[in-house]
């Protein structure tokens, strides 16, 4: 709900703020949108965070959009700050139109989580943030030329050397040389991890100057969950300071999505959070459906919930296994993988694919569940609980496990909120915030389940919270299965979903619909939408911007791991080297999602 379309400037600040406050007191003001000019954003953010009536202390994300060449927008760029009040679950969207070339004041002093969000906006779209504490690139190499998410950034077209055209095409190395300002590609590679020049480690420069040992964990380290690079300053085995270096897995998913039709971009979402692909499917699909203004049938809702919860269990099992592996309990790793296989079997049964299912589609599901699906899920519901008891017996009271996890990697609720930590990680600290309860989607309000919370915010509590979440997810799956409605598994608007296969043989209209949807897609009304969901890792959502037409103009995701990772240095500083491994495991990050 928009307060007013009027721009908040220094003159209209007090008046419009009073309006916004008045609105936020009412029930329909749970979600409000403001427009603010760049010069006033820090002042506005400060008021919204600190005013006792507002208390928007959690910055969920900063969305950055390039409206290049689109009529009707005064400024070329737009920033959308999305902040939450986590006491009574209110949301605010602050939209800031930014003309080309203008710098914006950094809000990192108000919401520390903005540090990485703003670095990302600078890296990928070239926003300049005044007074930013750490203005470096974050996902792309520090010597990368240009900002690829700008609409005028040249894409593709580089010819590739093959044997037929070897002599005609510039060798790749020559092309690479042009990418690094002032040095050749070889020089760039060979300077190695010189602390003075390497982007990720430069916060640790002062330690290097004091002759402390700087150690690089990753990106090829066995336990950084993919390709995270951590630079640690050590005194003996005690961690003095830490810095994350990410982007090794950056594949430009957001840029790729802009080149694809809405239903095609869905397949990219699988590839982000590869441990919980259906959760990301769901988050994306919900945003697009909100833009389209469609409501999916109850059967699809229930199945979506069931699949999302199974995904959560699969992801938590993966967490448990790798976490235990990192603490040296190798066997648990294999047990968990065996259990996870059961869930992948269920996915395979439903969609034919084990991992990148793309099963949840815009408008419902890709296909109805096959025969035997319910029986298989029921079998799993019986299968898992004894296994969980076994894991509790192996780990929960194991003295070594307790020593390794209790009081390690602690983060308080306040720090977690400041850094944008969400999901099981912040619940482990004691904040009872779960998007499924706070802003229910897909009919989660109809299910009976608890939100487990810890109290210490250490590795052990995060572990216990996830263990319990698996049980709660089983509860939800059971309820969804028991009350599975009949009816259609998707909407019947064949301008959006493909007509049934058997209709193609008998209906010309179906053929036309099929052809149109498959070849040119469907138009999505102009506007933007964001739906937050609770993925296995925390608050996950897609901010989808459309300017009409079959392709998303901009798809900005809110990856929970990205925000959580930002808090990692705070968690590990002061601990031991071995605690770093335990902590990285316990926050359950997926680098595919962090780097996209």
């Amino acid at each position: 709900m928009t307060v007013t379309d009027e721009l908040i400037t220094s003159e209209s600040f007090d008046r419009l703020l009073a309006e916004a406050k008045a609105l936020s007191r009412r029930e329909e003001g749970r979600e409000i949108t403001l427009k603010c000019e760049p010069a006033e954003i820090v002042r506005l953010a400060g008021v919204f965070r600190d005013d006792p009536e507002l208390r928007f202390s959690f910055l969920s994300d900063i969305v950055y959009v390039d409206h290049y060449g689109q009529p009707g927008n005064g400024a070329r760029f737009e920033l959308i700050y999305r902040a939450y009040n986590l006491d009574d679950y209110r949301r605010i969207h602050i939209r800031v139109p930014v003309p080309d070339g203008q710098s914006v004041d950094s809000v990192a002093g108000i919401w520390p989580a903005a540090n990485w969000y703003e670095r990302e906006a600078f890296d990928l779209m070239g926003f300049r943030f005044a007074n930013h504490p750490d203005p470096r690139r974050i996902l792309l190499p520090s010597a990368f030329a240009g900002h690829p998410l700008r609409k005028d950034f040249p894409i593709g077209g580089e010819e590739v050397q093959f044997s037929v055209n070897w002599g005609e095409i510039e060798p790749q190395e020559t092309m690479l040389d042009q990418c690094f300002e002032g040095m050749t590609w070889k020089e760039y590679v060979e300077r190695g991890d010189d602390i003075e020049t390497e982007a990720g480690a430069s916060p640790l420069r002062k330690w290097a100057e004091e002759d402390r040992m700087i150690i690089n964990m990753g990106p090829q380290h066995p336990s950084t969950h993919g390709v995270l690079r951590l630079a640690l300053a050590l005194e003996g085995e005690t961690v003095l300071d830490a810095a994350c270096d990410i982007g090794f897995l950056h594949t430009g998913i957001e840029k790729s999505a802009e080149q694809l039709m809405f239903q095609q971009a869905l397949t990219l979402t699988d590839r982000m959070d590869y441990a919980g692909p259906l959760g990301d499917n769901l988050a994306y699909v919900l945003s697009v459906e909100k833009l389209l203004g469609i409501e999916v049938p109850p059967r699809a809702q229930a199945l979506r919930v069931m699949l999302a919860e199974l995904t959560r269990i699969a992801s938590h099992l993966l967490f448990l296994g790798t976490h235990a592996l990192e603490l040296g309990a190798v066997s648990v790793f294999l047990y968990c993988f065996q259990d996870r296989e059961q869930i992948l079997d269920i996915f395979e049964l439903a969609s034919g694919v084990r991992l990148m299912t793309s099963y949840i589609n815009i408008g419902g599901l890709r296909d109805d569940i096959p025969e035997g699906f319910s029986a298989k899920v029921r079998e799993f519901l019986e299968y898992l609980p004894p296994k969980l008891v076994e894991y509790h017996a192996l780990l929960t009271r194991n003295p070594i496990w307790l020593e390794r996890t209790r009081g390690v990697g602690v983060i308080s609720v306040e720090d977690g909120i400041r850094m944008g930590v969400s999901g099981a990680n912040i619940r482990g600290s004691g904040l009872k915030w779960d998007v499924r309860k706070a802003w229910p989607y897909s009919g989660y309000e109809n299910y009976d389940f608890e939100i487990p919370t810890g109290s210490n915010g250490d590795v052990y509590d995060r572990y216990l919270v996830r263990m319990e979440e698996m049980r709660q997810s089983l509860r939800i799956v059971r309820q969804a299965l028991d009350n599975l409605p009949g009816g259609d598994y998707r909407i019947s608007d064949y301008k959006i979903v493909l007509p049934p296969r058997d209709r193609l043989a008998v209906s010309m209209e179906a053929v036309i619909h099929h052809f149109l949807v498959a070849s040119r897609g469907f138009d999505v009304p102009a506007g933007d939408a964001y739906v937050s969901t609770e993925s296995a890792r925390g608050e996950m959502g897609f901010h989808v911007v459309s300017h009409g037409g079959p392709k998303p103009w901009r798809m900005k995701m809110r990856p929970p791991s990205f925000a959580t990772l930002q808090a990692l240095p705070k968690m590990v500083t002061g601990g031991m080297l071995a605690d770093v491994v335990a902590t990285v495991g316990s926050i359950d990050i997926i680098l595919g999602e962090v780097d996209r």
Partner: protein
Amino acid sequence: MPFDVTELVIAIVKALVVFVALLSIVPVLIWMERKVIADIQIRIGPNRAGPFGLLQPLADAIKLIFKENIITQGADKVVYFFAPAVSMVPAIITFAVVPFGDTAHILGRKVLLQVADVNIGILYILALSSLGVYGIVLAGWSSNNKYSLLGGVRSSAQMISYELPLGLALVGPVLLSGSLSLREMINAQGRAGVWFIVPQFLAFAVYLISGFAETNRAPFDLPEAEQELTAGYHTEYSSFRFALFYMAEYVNMVTVGAVATTIFLGGWRGPFGNIVILQPVWFLVKLFAILYFFIWVRGTLPRLRYDKLMKLGWKVLLPLALLNLMVTATVKALAPQSAIPIMSVLSLVLVAIGVIALTIISARSTRTPASGLREPSAEGAFYTWES
């Protein structure tokens, strides 16, 4: 004693036999470890090379030997070169004093089934097993790799700390048997009619736990903690030099197991023990039982943290070993003749108390007090909630 050429030949043959046997136990042990761990982890384990995958260690060894031997830039080449040998040699020669049988009569000669019956056997073992740490420290230091260095530092601290409880744990059996010779200690166990594990259970437990640390085995495998230090001190090693470290670890494991067998489990003694040919068999059976225990623990427990490991060594194991030594010495001084029965009773009481205490503790900690979460109440049931 006049110099006897036959004695020399016998000694060489014995040394060779033990050397070869030790080196061939290692592949068997590796195979067994992989199979047992696979079984614990619900996998199949090696089953391609040879029947039941028995040739897998051999295939691995051949693969390793044919790999390129990489020397890192900036490595201290001489030290880097010799470190694997420094780690391997003490591991092998420690075995010289371990008896694997009584006296055999071959061609009218008495042959001790032991390479050398040294009358200070235990001191010899302790001295040599401390030397092994040099190989690891030097490897870690000379690799010019920070992870290796950390691994080397960890292992030196760990092995030196655990030497103490390990050595002190062995003093108890020495007091009971009145000898430092391993052969004499086996005989003492024969005379007493009870293995020293019974009167010296505490010492046995301390010895075994310290043994895990001495051999860098899980849960004390910090020097090579894969998830923390990539591969620790041998990160930069490849080819045969890596194989040497790998083998040294297993030989060490065999040695620790063999010493435990000899001192606490009656060595080669067993039913029909007077049949000489059976004695090495009994020895091997006991040895492999202990090795199985090593593997079992590895498949079950998570790894300790460095500082906790030190705490365990200095604040728990060392006092326990001292306590055991004190009690044993007191009993031995007051009742020299009936020391073993008295100690056996004491140790049984200790075990009983331990079992009861553990039961009470585990019953008490059903609730994890630090957090709002509770343990599962019944099989598969969702547990009750307190918010």
